């Protein structure tokens, strides 16, 4: 009781002290590597001279921008409308097969959205009755279907952590279940919905595969066309900067909402189980709805690929390139995961244990990569690589470096949150028992943070398995990954060829996803709220 008042004070006092050099130097190095390509991107755009401005602000650019914003808004809205009821149904009601649905609903996340779109087009598309509809609504439909699990996961965990006594209080004050949900529960879920929507909106804004396949004129497509079409790539750079601006606006906007709503946040919740709502005759209807959506988002792509695989292999299609593609994908994924975590650790350690304006700045800026669409990162690295790093340009290390920049936020996020769970008292205890700070890190901090750090590595791995534009622009020549194999099927007709690599991506992603789930459970036991 007595010490709580001063527990936060020592951190305030540390602001004047410079963070330890042992951590600061690697953190600054990571920051430099991250920021240089973007500074160069800006430099290229500015140095292109004045003739570029009319090109940027011509009508087509505005149309593309408007299309992208419209798409992001409609996808976010649809995904929210799908995800929030699902989360409520699986957490708080007597829905049949809740446990199974809990596992199934988020699974579409392992399907790369471009692969899902290929399956959708294959099932509903060419010469089908729905073709015309697909061209108008395809991008919206596919993106909503494959991204809503982001919001679902975030809202679900918020619902599980909610303090049920707040709802009880609302009920005891005379509000019915409906009003309680609208006036008490929903406002508390707002930060969770917000961060889920941010992920979905960023995904949509930076999506390359789906919009290309569905022929939706989005900003990313504009950039890619510009990049491919002309020798002067300054315009592509300038357009890329506009996209970065859009993404940063989203991130800043979300953190505003979150700050306003942080007021609603509750503690770790109570151990008491909240009341389960009885759905009555709606029970099976709700179940059917959940099943239907899952069938579309998970069942349809899987079934389609299996069908193609079966009919394609019998037609004697060549699967010879696949083992190399698998090996390449795994190499890039594993290297990116390891490098991203090594880069994330000093930043996370600084941010959690040595809070100062410097460390906060480093942490925040590492999150910027979060808002950077893959295509912009790829462009920035193309510029720098072609000009200054020619020996490295289009080599494996360079590709991995770009992946690290893209997925560093996952690493920093996971490392930061797992470090935050470790009480500084544990490290202090180690110090008072005669261990130096380095020994404390290796003997106490690292082993305790391990589950969270592994989870972060898995997230980076999953991301880089699915990543398309970075591989397309930066991979060494003749370097095929599962992602490029899937994609090349769309460029050379015959969608059927996408089946095998797409299924392999799904399979190789599903395994670590299940590991991730187990890892979470393990870490929940190992690190109680110390």
């Amino acid at each position, binding site marked *: *009781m*007595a*010490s*709580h*008042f*001063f527990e936060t*004070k*020592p951190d*305030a*006092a540390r602001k004047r002290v410079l963070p330890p050099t042992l951590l600061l130097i690697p953190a600054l190095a990571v920051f430099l590597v991250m920021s240089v390509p973007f500074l160069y991107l800006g430099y290229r755009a500015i140095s292109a001279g004045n003739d570029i401005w009319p090109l940027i602000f011509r009508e087509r650019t505005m149309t593309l921008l408007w299309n992208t914003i419209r798409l992001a808004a409609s996808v976010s809205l649809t995904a929210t409308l799908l995800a929030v009821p699902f989360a409520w149904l699986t957490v708080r009601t007597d829905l049949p097969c809740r446990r199974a649905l809990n596992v199934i609903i988020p699974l579409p996340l392992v399907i790369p959205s471009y692969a899902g779109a290929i399956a959708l087009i294959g099932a509903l598309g060419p010469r089908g009755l729905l073709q015309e509809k697909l061209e108008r609504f395809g991008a919206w439909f596919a993106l909503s279907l494959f991204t809503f699990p982001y919001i679902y996961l975030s809202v679900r965990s918020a619902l599980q952590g909610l303090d049920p006594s707040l709802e009880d209080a609302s009920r005891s004050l005379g509000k019915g279940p409906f009003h309680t949900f609208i006036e008490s529960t929903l406002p508390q879920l707002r930060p969770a919905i917000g961060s889920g929507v941010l992920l979905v909106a960023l995904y949509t804004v930076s999506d390359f595969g789906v919009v290309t396949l569905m022929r939706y004129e989005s900003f990313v497509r504009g950039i890619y066309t510009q990049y491919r079409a002309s020798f002067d790539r300054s315009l592509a750079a300038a357009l890329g900067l506009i996209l970065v601006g859009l993404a940063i606006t989203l991130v800043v906007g979300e953190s505003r909402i979150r700050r306003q709503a942080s007021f609603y946040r509750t503690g770790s919740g109570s151990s008491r189980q909240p009341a389960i709502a009885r759905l009555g005759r709606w029970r099976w209807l709700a179940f059917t709805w959940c099943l239907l959506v899952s069938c579309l988002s998970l069942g349809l792509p899987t079934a389609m690929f299996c069908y193609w695989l079966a009919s394609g292999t019998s037609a004697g299609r060549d699967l010879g390139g696949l083992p190399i593609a698998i090996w390449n994908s795994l190499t890039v994924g594993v290297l990116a995961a390891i490098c991203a975590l090594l880069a994330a650790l000093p930043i996370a350690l600084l941010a959690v244990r040595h809070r100062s304006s410097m460390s906060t700045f480093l942490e925040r800026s590492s999150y910027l990569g979060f808002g950077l669409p893959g295509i912009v990162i790829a462009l920035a690295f193309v510029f720098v690589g072609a000009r200054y790093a020619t020996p490295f340009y289009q080599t494996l290390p360079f590709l991995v470096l770009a992946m690290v920049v893209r997925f560093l936020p996952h690493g920093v996020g996971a490392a930061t949150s797992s470090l935050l769970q470790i*009480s500084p*008292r*544990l490290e*202090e*205890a*180690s*110090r*008072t*028992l*005669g*261990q*130096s*700070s380095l020994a404390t890190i290796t*003997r*106490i901090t690292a*082993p*305790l943070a391990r589950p969270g750090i592994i989870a972060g590595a898995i997230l980076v791995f999953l991301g880089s398995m699915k990543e398309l534009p970075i591989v397309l622009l930066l991979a060494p020549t003749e370097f095929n990954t599962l992602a490029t194999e899937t994609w090349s099927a769309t460029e050379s007709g015959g969608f059927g060829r996408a089946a095998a690599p797409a299924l392999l991506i799904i399979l190789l992603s599903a395994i670590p996803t299940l590991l991730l789930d187990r890892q979470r459970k393990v870490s929940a*036991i*190992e*690190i*109680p709220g*110390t």
Partner: protein
Amino acid sequence: MTSQLRVVGLFKRFGNVSVVNGLDLDVQSGEFVALLGPSGCGKTTTLRMIAGLERADAGQIEIAQTVVAANSRHIPAERRNIGLVFQEYALFPHLTIGQNVAYGLRRTRSRSTTVADYLTLVGLAGLENRYPRELSGGQQQRVALARALAPKPDILLLDEPFSNLDPSLRAQVRAEVREILRQSNCTSVLVTHDQEEALSMADRVAVMFDGQIVQCATPRTLYEQPANHAVASFVGDAWFVEGVARGKVIDTALGQLRGRSEQHGPVTVLIRPEMIVILAADSPFGVEASITSSRFFGHDQLLTCQLKDGMRVESRIIGAPEHTTGDNVRLIVRGHVLSFSDQK
């Protein structure tokens, strides 16, 4: 006797808030001193500066005749040879009990024997291979104690170690810890805001207000002869009665009281509830009063008594009550009283 811990003129600010203001403290070898103060008085910060987890702005700290902090000198926690028991125990969750206790020990052949010895000392022999989460709060706390004691620290620091325990368990664990510390003959400093804990455990109690030590004395002296009103109220229930002293006699609304020392002029007399004895209304002694309310605690009870002039005092009665609310009674004050002179 040599002093094992010497703190002179210690200062610490956090931003604009001055937390420790020129604190002095002297702890003798083998002594158990409690640092007692209300929430936010700076006692935990003081302990953390002694431990080396916090840097002092000014002042000097000596542990076992070695200067560990002075001016710009700051020996880090790991080289101070201190033991610290945390409020939340801070046992390493990924290590077994045995590994926790062994953590601060050198890798020698006798290490496992030492671990076993200390676990035996705290009454947890044979639990080496358990994990902290498998132990109860009281057991975890004893592991924390064994872990801190095992490297034979020059001084053991305890930061509110009992506040996370169930109240019913607390008294027992305190007694056990006191006994363990007596056996290991370790110099100890306990930080607490609980006066009962400080008085019952410590050889000496240092009362701390606003970053300074106001009084440092044995529990009995502290209780019977507090330095001022604030200390008097903080270490126990206290009522203050105005009076006029003439030598060792003090005239008050409670009658003529016997003072501890010679004084003259207006004074304030400290009355503890257990000093007030309640007599029947027809008794020839004491001053008239009526009982206005009572609080029952089982082993004792507190009766609030109102004198004729409206003044109230409380009386603590051990055992079965003879009087209840509404009764007219007479009050006398037992023993010598402490008085503070009102003259500036």
